[in-house]
């Protein structure tokens, strides 16, 4: 499939749909992780972020509705890295992470998505792909702006945020 995402609109849209679906699934999964570990504020935050992803995914799916998109296996997609851009770095998560850290995690996902679309826009071999990729990159830029704005408004968490009265490390 090498570089077909730059050449064929259906292949590009298949990537865009997969990117958004992966984002929703990933953020929902992270929200559930937080719920299981009783971090209710972050559960709600990640659910909210996943909700935005659902909207975005729907928009792209509607755009692609008339097309018969190719079905790829997960490893056949050509991302800039090994994984779908909005699947964040799992190792950055932890159960007592703060809203600031959570938003930074989400911000990195959006930056990765923007980088992916910008790469497509700069290498696109058709005007249709270039225009769509540019539009999607702008949407990701808007997400970045909103997240940065929200990060700026966040209050510092209290000193007791990181206190776990039942820590995983037990005395042996």
């Amino acid at each position, binding site marked *: 499939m090498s570089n077909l995402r730059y050449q064929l609109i259906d292949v590009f849209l298949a990537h865009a749909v997969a990117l958004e679906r992966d984002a929703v*699934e990933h953020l929902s*999964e*992270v929200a*559930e*992780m*937080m*719920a*299981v*570990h009783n971090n209710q504020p972050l559960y709600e935050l990640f659910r909210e972020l996943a909700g935005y992803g659902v909207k975005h995914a729907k928009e792209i799916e509607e755009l692609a509705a008339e097309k018969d998109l190719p079905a790829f*296996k*997960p*490893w056949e*997609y050509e991302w800039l890295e*090994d*994984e*779908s851009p909005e699947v964040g*770095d*799992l*190792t*950055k*998560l*932890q*159960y007592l*992470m703060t809203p600031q850290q959570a938003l930074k995690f989400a911000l990195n996902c959006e930056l990765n998505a923007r980088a992916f679309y910008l790469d497509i826009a700069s290498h696109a071999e058709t005007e249709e792909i270039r225009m769509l990729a540019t539009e999607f990159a702008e949407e990701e830029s808007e997400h970045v702006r909103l997240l940065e704005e929200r990060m700026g408004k966040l209050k510092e968490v209290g000193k007791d945020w990181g206190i776990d009265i039942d820590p*995983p*490390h*037990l*005395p*042996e």
Partner: protein
Amino acid sequence: MSLIPTKAKEYKSDIKPIWCPGCGHYSVLNAITKAMLALQLEKRNVAIISGIGCSSRLPAYTDMYGFHGVHGRALPVATGLAVARPDLTVIAVGGDGDGFSIGGNHFLHACRRNVNFVYIAMDNEVYGMTKGQASPTSPANWDHSKLAPHGTQIKPFQPAAIALAAGASYVARGYSGNPNGMARMIAEAIEFPGFAFIQALSQCITFCPEQTEWKEVVRPFKDVTTNDPVIAAQRIHGDDGFSTGVIYNNPRSVWPVVNAADTGITAEDAFKNLGQEFQV
């Protein structure tokens, strides 16, 4: 109506994992479900077998048949199931403690017996469920546990090398930081005829936070898969344990022998004979 899910997440159950956020096991679970979807497997034709430990909770998080068994005993159960029901896709999962310590002997014999199933050892170099003790694959100087304050000072178990030496005909190493790559590996392992072993490097961020650095050192093996055990051994021993990929792929006859033309014994007969031997 098709019984094959249309999304990978449909292979998951409604039970939410209680693994720590950041645990690599989430990625292994996702890799398994992605592989299932890629192979278009029906849920009713797959069984996930496990022992005890954090990673051994995995069958509960899938919507396929599963057996959460006894500590270290995933492989005997998987062996029995794969022999009795060769039509099923059988996947054994577990951790490094479960598989290489209490289950170590079963690991050796699963490798040499070559029954047709996949074994994914989710290796985080620690006993997580019991709060972070050194496991067979812990580095010798790993000193986070008060039970081994100066490290175990024992050379860690080398899963891939031992699998190869014990006769495994498919040996691979994946990384939870690359679930798509691991999904491909698992799909290939499922299609491999015989015992397929995957060492899945899967970080434990709670007890081994230093493993978040794995993503800086994990990289693909430089060389392509070999069917030569000597070359495979050289690659494994010449590596620091962080190269990933299918190291060795060399199919051989699967037990029980199913080709009646070769032996006159079918799988069904072999199983019946076993039943008589053990008076089942």
